[in-house]
């Protein structure tokens, strides 16, 4: 008996590798951390990334900007504007956030062009080297509290290596934020969760479900489906919801 017991003790048990759960409380903890100065937050659309970036520990001013392929670096850094007979310098959101030690939220980072990427290189540097020299010859150093959160749907692999390397933390979230989910009624929340795993072209984002809920109060379920999803998709979704709620 004792021999068997010792054999059992000596044999290591085979267990699955420990998972790395990336849930929303953890994400918020990282965002609040003073060590996380540059964060890349990515995941599927409509799960609350931008909301958290704006509102999580809102103890500092937030400067938000959404970049596109056509966004010029001047829009982020700042630009001259004519005022009367002279030109006046206006800070862009990057410069302003660095000056006051605010939080800079850049949405859809992978969508912007290389010009913006290059501008962000010195901004995302370590605190000791981060600085930005403006066309006014003024050099800006980030004030204490300066933080950059970039949100996107695409993985960080879509970014150039030099930029990717400058993030202190890369956070991937897959689940919708619990606070956002609580806004849905019980029945729509159940429907949302059932369709969460379907292929992308059938997926319905949280925003659409919230719209459906708002419209439903005024137009009823049928009208809400029509208003939010159009005649074809709306009718198919209506059929499925009604049938799902029917008795077995």
């Amino acid at each position, binding site marked *: 008996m004792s021999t068997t017991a010792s054999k059992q003790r000596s044999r290591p048990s085979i267990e699955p590798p420990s998972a790395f759960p990336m849930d929303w409380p953890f994400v918020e903890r990282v965002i609040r951390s003073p060590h996380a100065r540059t964060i890349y937050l990515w995941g599927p659309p409509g799960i609350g990334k931008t909301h958290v970036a704006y509102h999580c520990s809102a103890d500092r001013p937030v400067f938000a900007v959404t970049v596109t392929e056509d966004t010029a670096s001047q829009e982020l850094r700042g630009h001259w504007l004519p*005022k009367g007979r002279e030109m006046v310098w206006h800070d862009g959101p990057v410069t302003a956030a660095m000056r006051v030690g605010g939080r800079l939220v850049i949405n859809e980072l992978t969508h912007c062009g290389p010009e913006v990427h290059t501008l962000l290189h010195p901004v995302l540097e370590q605190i000791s080297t981060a600085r930005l020299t403006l066309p006014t010859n003024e050099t800006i150093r980030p004030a204490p509290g300066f933080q950059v959160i970039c949100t996107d749907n695409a993985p960080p692999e879509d970014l150039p290596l030099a930029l990717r390397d400058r993030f202190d933390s890369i956070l991937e979230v897959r689940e919708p934020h619990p606070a956002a989910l609580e806004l849905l009624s019980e029945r729509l929340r159940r429907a949302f969760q059932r369709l969460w795993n379907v292929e992308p072209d059938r997926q319905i984002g949280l925003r659409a479900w919230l719209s459906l809920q708002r419209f439903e109060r005024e137009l009823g379920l049928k009208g809400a489906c029509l208003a939010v999803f159009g005649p074809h998709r709306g009718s198919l979704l209506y*059929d499925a919801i*009604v049938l799902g709620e*029917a008795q077995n």
Partner: protein
Amino acid sequence: MARTVPAHFKPFPELAERRSNAKPFWIVDTTGKPWLPTNGMTSLVHRKLFVPLQPWARSVARHELAHVKWSPKRLPKKLGHDARILMAVEDARLNLGMLAVGLPVFLSESERVQVGRLAREDLRGPDVLAFVLRAVAALGTNAERAILEALIGESEALRDLTYRHVRNVRVRLLRGRRARKKPVASFQLVRRIARELAEELQRDLAALGYPLSLPWPMDLAGAGCCLGGGHAHAAGRKAGHTGTDGGAELVSGAMTVVQAPLPVPCAAARRSRRARGRATSEGSLPRVFHRWPVDQAVFVRRGRQRGGTVLVDTSGSMALDAAGIDRILEASSGAAIVAIYSGHEREGELRLVARDGKRADAAALVPKGRGNIVDEPALAWLVRQQEPRLWISDGGVTGIGDVTSPELQRRCAELCRRGRITRVRTVEEAAQRLGRRHFQRSPTPTKSTGT
């Protein structure tokens, strides 16, 4: 080969099923697939839903959702009679259930005409068993009348036989539903009704001298009242019978990238203007001071060079001719890169046929094979090219052996999403998109907005 189709015609069976399941349904489009036994099928075991992804097919989708909601996962193995009789009664149970929950299976006028035509063909057969089953399966739909109207002019005995059995099934299903106080009768009752119907039909048809078997084989199982093909409705198909769909492990063929000789210059490319900077009143560094007294637009915003990449799927019926390339080059001011791809068996080729305002001659536009094979590596190549990225294709993607799989489709869709690839169907559409981009970004003076 499964085709990518507009997502807004895809139903949501996950919402209708009784218990939540982490594995989503695979929605398969049955449009243009005449080899399938019918245009609407459900496999609860394999979690597949076969429906036409068309605007007119809502009734088919509704009926299939009813299978997801109320049908058992598997049909009983030992029945003692033809399984198609059970399927017909099950269809009737579901249609009556849908009627009860306010989602009637409502066929369009043309579908009803088609069902009526099939019913008349049954009687002309004479396949009375098929006709009766069709009428039973149509219970609860608006096709019931179209089927029964086929009896006009038939013998009184035949009319009596059909009406009696159809009415009997309806009354028993409705009573069963009422007894349960639920939208549908139980499946046990369906089995009982089917067994008794089989016995009675055997006796009655023999007495009238009609054949006792159905005209179609068991593979095309069912009665399919409300189905376009009118001869089948297979709930729970045999495993492995998935048409040309490959498994999840399907891989793409090996792709080689070749550069065709480009001897033909595009005249339109020479004529077109190059992209220029745009004067604006906002900016960092003033560059054009001479505009200050005019409109104060002393800054220059860099213009984006026009161009883009067009990838053309030349498999199957798709093709690209020299005029098509000229059209693309013209729309992009000669700056676009054009490539074609196709394959055969295990390998494919991506051929660059236009760049820098020059194109290949017609002889270099002949595809390497008639299959897709290398959609995935070709799309991966396109992701690395200059934007805008256009993919002229019917949307079907295949790998080795010209077969497809949901995993391959998912990977290609992901590439398109991440690489911001826009799929278009024709060269004209691609040219329009390139041209529109040109129009949007043409240099325009900006008014001063001095503050």
